């Protein structure tokens, strides 16, 4: 039963990460800055001119934006992969526990 709960929690966390990724724009790479382009009418030149600024804005990506350990974890695929592995392992362990209740009990008691 505990294995099933662990498996369900891992899948829920994975779902939460995927939803967060989709709401943050579904970027391929994790980004930490956003380009803001402000267009204004320039009266002297009689044309539209642009001001480009970069502001801090974290957006989760499918793949890591950097190569440090921290950056690698801040993406969908790496923590998502770990969560899938945990869910599969917990599901498998739960199924084995149901098939062999004695072994399961022995392992649990140990």
């Amino acid at each position, binding site marked *: 039963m505990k294995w099933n709960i662990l498996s369900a929690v891992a899948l829920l966390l994975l779902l939460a990460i995927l939803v967060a990724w989709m709401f943050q724009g579904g970027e*391929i*790479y*994790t*980004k*930490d*800055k*956003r*380009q803001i382009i402000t267009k204004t009418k*320039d*009266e*002297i*030149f*009689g*044309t539209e*001119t*642009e*001001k*480009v600024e*970069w502001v801090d804005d974290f957006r989760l990506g499918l793949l890591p*934006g*950097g*190569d*440090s350990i921290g*950056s690698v974890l801040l993406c969908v695929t790496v923590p998502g992969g770990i969560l899938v592995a945990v869910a599969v392992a917990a599901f498998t362990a739960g199924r084995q526990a149901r098939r062999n209740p004695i072994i399961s009990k022995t392992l649990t008691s140990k």
Partner: protein
Amino acid sequence: MKKNIINGKIVFFMIFSALFVWPAAFDASIANVRVKIAINGKKNITLNNKVGDNIVKFVSSAPLEEIRGSADGISGSFTLDFDNLKVSHGTISVEVASMQTGVSTRNRHLFSDEWLDARRYPKLVFQLNSLENMQIIRDDNAVFEIKADAVGIFSMHGESKEIKAPVTIKYVKESPATKQRADGDFVMITGKFKVALKDFKIKGAGGFIGKKVGEVIDVELTLFGSTAQQ
């Protein structure tokens, strides 16, 4: 017989005008663009952020991602010769370290020796050598605007290549309105060109080019300057 002589004269006139008169007139119209605006001689223009935000934007389109970036560390000066705009010349440079792509780690990679090698080649430089294919868009008492091809040498990553960038140059004479921003006559230049990374021997890290970074980078620039000495 007389008719043949007349026909011969007409044919001779047509061939003569085709060979000498029309090309000369055409050449004069593009090579010696004479402007109505009351400006004469050479004008030295220095880029100035008080006139407007100097910015270079670049876009890399690759199957895995489109990278949009910009650079604002732009400086330089150039000379527009209103007696012969064709011989306009100057130098514009962009600091590699001012380039921003939206991902801090990617910026560091961009500056590294596998990409632009900012330590050895800290600037991208465009040396304007001439203006070609000029076309006057506006020419009145206060504003002069042309479209032209800026021909010059673009240097990046220690490599140099001649490029031809279509630009629009707008020259605005000093007025009470311009004086509120900065002294001197104002100039605004907009232009677009493409940079093929292989032309500048940029190989990048393991197979990135073509997958995560485009082989050709689209560059768009907006420059502002004034004739005032800074």
